[in-house]
């Protein structure tokens, strides 16, 4: 909040001087020489909430920033301990990912929990006991059409939806929140598939041009749903507010040009009621990962979480074991404005399909085919011609774009 919009001062000034002539970019992509620069630090990250488990704790080593990857740390003994001496050792379900049992420990409001990790190398890491706070509910999540500037000086302004959240009134004066945004969106392929070739022809269209039986439903490649957590953090506190309620907190912004607003978008906000210490951690991460593009910034630093090596306090341990009460916001659905166009070029086949297939290398397979209609650019009034086309996989098979062709239960 203390950070000013310094960049716009510069732009404003340059413009004051030169009118619109000098709209040169002040921001360029650049990769500095980080020298040896990669440190290899242990990351322990997980949470327990009042929602039923299983709860997950992930152990990994940090990676060089040029290629971020999850470097799992396996074979550790990971234990979640309730202060009432109930505890559960988590099972490594896949490498570096440790989970409680389906019917195992359950987070109870008012209880205190801590995490203990013993690595294969023998390091003992612990967090302090922290109380699972009574969650405050989300009153509403809403959105509004807005115009926002693109990140860089010469980016165009974007029209889109800005999302907002309002909490319920808390019974307590000081509350600290962290939000996760779970988003789901429906999206469609650019074209209906006719058939594809994967060593053999597979026909998908209900009407087969050659009268062959259909082997798959083309819909399964056309309609997809994508679910995931928004990779942005949101934090806020009622510490300085007269009423312990947060109204219309700005969440994320989705421009209409974004794929998520192709068909229908749904948002579920998960509101974590957290301790002041956890708030400091998440807020620092939020600021350090988003506000560095300004003229006037705070000094970045290594943000350490609440887990320590009990034998070596100097060792840096990244990540956090969050103990929090969580409440889900009302799920909202947003009908897309249908501005989004999936950019999909199609190569109309000007020669024999068979010849094309036989010359394709195996790594190009499968090859997807559809009918496209195209107009003669020299004669726009003429009737569009239907033609067989070879299309990029992602344009015909929506699963290639990260989603699944299965409609979620909650989908309206």
């Amino acid at each position, binding site marked *: *909040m*203390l950070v*000013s*919009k310094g960049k*716009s*001062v*510069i*732009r*404003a000034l*340059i*413009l*004051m*001087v*030169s009118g*619109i002539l*000098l709209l*040169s970019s002040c*921001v*360029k992509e*650049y*990769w*500095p020489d*980080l*020298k040896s*620069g*990669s*440190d*290899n*630090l242990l*990351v322990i*990250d997980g949470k327990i909430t009042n929602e039923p488990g299983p709860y997950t704790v*992930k152990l990994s080593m*940090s*990676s060089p*920033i*040029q290629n971020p990857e999850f470097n799992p740390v396996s074979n550790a003994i990971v234990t979640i301990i309730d202060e009432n001496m109930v505890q559960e050792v988590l099972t490594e379900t896949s490498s570096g990912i440790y989970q409680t049992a389906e019917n195992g420990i359950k987070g109870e409001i008012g209880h205190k929990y801590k995490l203990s990790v013993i690595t294969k190398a023998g390091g003992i890491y612990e967090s302090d006991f922290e109380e699972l706070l009574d969650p405050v509910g989300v009153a509403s999540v809403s959105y509004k059409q807005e115009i926002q*500037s693109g990140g860089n000086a010469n980016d165009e*302004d974007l029209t889109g939806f800005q999302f907002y959240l309002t909490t319920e009134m808390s019974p307590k004066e000081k509350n600290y929140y962290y939000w996760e945004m779970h988003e789901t969106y429906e999206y469609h392929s650019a074209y209906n598939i006719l058939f594809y070739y994967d060593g053999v022809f597979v026909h998908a269209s209900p009407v087969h041009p050659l009268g062959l039986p259909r082997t798959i439903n083309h819909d399964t490649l056309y309609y997809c749903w994508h679910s995931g*957590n928004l990779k*942005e953090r949101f934090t806020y506190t009622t510490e*300085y*507010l*007269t009423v312990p*309620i*947060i*109204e219309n*907190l700005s969440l994320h912004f989705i421009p209409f040009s974004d794929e998520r607003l192709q068909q229908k978008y749904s948002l579920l906000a998960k509101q974590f009621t957290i301790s002041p210490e956890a708030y400091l951690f998440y807020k*620092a991460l939020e600021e350090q*990962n988003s506000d560095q593009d300004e*003229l*006037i*910034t*705070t*000094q*970045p*630093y*290594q*943000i350490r979480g609440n887990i320590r090596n009990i034998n070596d306090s100097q060792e840096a341990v*990244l*990540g956090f074991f969050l103990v929090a009460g969580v409440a889900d916001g009302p799920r909202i659905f947003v009908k897309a404005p249908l501005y989004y166009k999936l950019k999909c070029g199609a190569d109309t086949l000007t020669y024999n399909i068979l010849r094309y297939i036989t010359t394709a290398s195996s790594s190009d397979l499968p090859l997807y085919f559809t009918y496209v209609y195209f107009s003669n650019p020299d004669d726009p009034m003429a009737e569009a011609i239907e033609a067989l086309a070879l299309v990029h996989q992602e344009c015909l098979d929506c699963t290639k774009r990260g989603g699944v062709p299965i409609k979620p239960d909650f989908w309206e």
Partner: protein
Amino acid sequence: MAYNLIRTSIIYLVFGFFISLNSPAFSQQQIQLPESYSNLTWNDFVVKMEQDFSLRFFYLPEDIPKLLISFDSDSISLMQLLNDHFNPHNIFVSIDRTGNVFLIKDIALQTSLPEDFFQYLIPEEEEEGSVAGISRDFLKTTERYIAKTITVGSRKKGVNKSTATISGYATNAKTGEVVISATIFDKSSGKGTVTDVNGFFSMTLNKGEHILTVSSVNIKEEHIKVDLLSDGELNLVLEDKIVLLSDVVIKADINNKVIGTQMGLEKITAKSIKKIPLVFGEKDIFKVALLLPGVQSLGEGSSGFNVRGSPTDQNVFYINHVPIYNTSHVAGFFSAFNSDAIDEFSLFKSNIPVHYGGRISSVFEIKSKQGSNEKYTASGGISPITGRFIVEGPLKKEKSSFLIGVRSTYSDWILNFVKDPEIKNSKARFADIVTNFSLQLKNNNQLNVFSYFSYDKMDLASQTKYDYQNLGGSVVWKHYFRMKNSFEISLAHSRYQFSEENSQFEIASYIHSNQLDHTEIKAISYIRPNEKHTINFGVNSILYQINRGQYDPLTQESLIETTDMGNEKGIETGFFVGDEWKVLPQMTIEGGIRYNLFTYLGAQEVFEYEEGFPKKPESIVDTLYFDNFEAVKTYGGLDVRLAANYMVSDRLSLKIAYNRLHQYIYMLTNTIAISPNYKWKLCDYNTEPIIGEQFSLGMFTNILNGRMVFSLETYYKKSQNVVEVKDGADLFLNEHVERSTLQGDLDAYGFEIMLQKPFGDLNGWVNYTYSHSSVLVNSIFKENQINFGEPYPSNFDKPHAFNFVASYAFSRRVSISGNVVYSTGRPITYPTSVYYQNDIPTLNYSSRNAYRIPDYFRVDMALSIEGSLLKRKPGHGSWTFSVYNILGRNNVYSVYFIQEDDTIKAYKLSIFGVPIFSISYNIKLGNYASE
């Protein structure tokens, strides 16, 4: 030309009553006239006599009857001739030893007295031959006599001595103001001296004739022939220099640097920066200061200076005794001082005068212009950003003057044409006004009344609005005593007001304002018990009142809680005494001590924390309550100043200095570049004063026959209790700052090499600085460490810096100038690894400032064209075309990393990535040479 008897003679007349009427004549009376004259008028005769025999005639014109002087004997004496002509008219003639001829009606004047008579009765400055108490009229007359000789002292007093000391004041003929740092140089002996803050100088020379060259930054160089008979006074009334194109870029006087005891002193006049190319064509003394050795800033557009590796809050800025707490417009893009209204500024970065205390790194002493006391005039200018206007003139001719200077932005309407909503809704406006009234009062008194106002309004995308202003004024009364002493008392008040409207978050939109009041009284005396010592002593006292302000909801929708951050008060008093002692003709020692007392005053509620433990709510052991103006805590501290100059030869001097200072106020900000919403905070119960020490060595020499001056200075600095903000601490609504700050040590060292060519068609300077600055904040408690208790480079640590500034005049009307600036990139903290926190790729940063941004390099050019050189014209205009960053180099201001989806991207941000062209036009009444 003869002098009327007027004032001087009255004393002689009075004496005449006491002394015997019959007296023997002296040697001068024996002047034998070599040729015959016929029918000369009295006036012609006087002229001839004064020319041929170095005589001066004193008489009342109405006494002299109309007569023609004739004689033809070649053996007649002057005395005889005059007696022959005047005795019949009852006019008596007397001639003294030094050739003064008195013609007085009815009274014969005795020109030689009993030996002991003068000792007791005649005030020293009235003795024959002395030019003490010289008035401007007198000197103007004597200017024509400069080919002749000004006699200083008397033979009688000089008996049995081979040397004599000449001393006096230098004043500006136009404004009556004292001229500081003028050099008085005797070419024959190679000796020289520099006028002090009172314009006083003193130097010891062999008796006899000398030609003194008087020069200074802003004044016309003069050559004065002096016949030194004994110790005596010579007061200099100096004319302003008319700046010719071929003349100046920088005018730190060449002799000055070598001769004075001062080290680490940079002096720049506003006139001299006229040609230096600057961004947006805006003349700015601070941007020029950044081209000097040892002065750095974080980057373009960042506010404040880092002088010799110190944070910005260790500098103080005084303009005519008024301290200014925010010295920049638009958060650092421009300085808050209108260069047109500034005469000169001095930057003390090593030897801080003992009468200044309270800031440990440097003092920027800015002198505003004084209005002309001769005629009304006006000047103005326009650049892409601002319009400027100055009007000045006499209040009472030749006695007092006024000057009013106004500057304001005018161009932010352009922003309305921009489509980008963030910019369209942004605004940046500023203005400043300077007024200066200067009054010469009777009996050596001078009064100066000055005021300063600056104002800034910034609106950033309608989300954050900053509004800040400085408002200050000073009254200075100065009195000169006869015996080379002076006394000055000043009263100054400065107020800095800041307010902020923040509507980034509707529910937490707030309005906040805070204010600092600085009230200062200072009394200082300069006395010179003898020619070897110049002593100054005095006291100053500052009352700081800080209203940390209140946060209020900005709108109905805002839920922000009204929070009053409270007030704080402190009083800082310093008692100081200093002496400049000429130990040997080649060696001067300057020493001073200053005792500071700082008392943090109530009303205050103060927490006492467990000693030695991190300050947090859990470690509070007691809460103390103090009434209004009750002393909460008092800190005493002894400041030391020591400096010595040894002249190895006339052209080479070695200097050494040690300084120890205390500081009781600091800037509270947690950003790398100073954020516009920084706050000032006093040292208090839980925050100790900052102590600074600096040791420096220097070598100064004139080379190439004095055409260039070369200097090498090296320093080591240590500051204790420097306030640093804890990692991640939020200062917003932070009532207990002590819990978010830590105090550590700052170490800095380096050397500065500078070569200057102040004169000629081609002039300028080149300098190189090597420096190092690092901070250490350590504790046995992890939460009281920064950077894990390891030392880290300070944000402005730039080891190598190179500046080249040059100007070349093709003719009086056309000149070009350029800058070349290079420095190592500033330190920066980069991420060194990435990890997944809650499945979000997250950056893990290196130790603080472990990396550097790419090096900085910039070239600027400017072309100045003056209007016609016609003498008679109503106004004179000049154009300056400048290109800042002519290479269009994308100098990096910062590098940052952002997580975008699943990858990390790095960007560099530059501020002026393109050449910035600008045109400015200046106009003034009168011709090219008009002031």
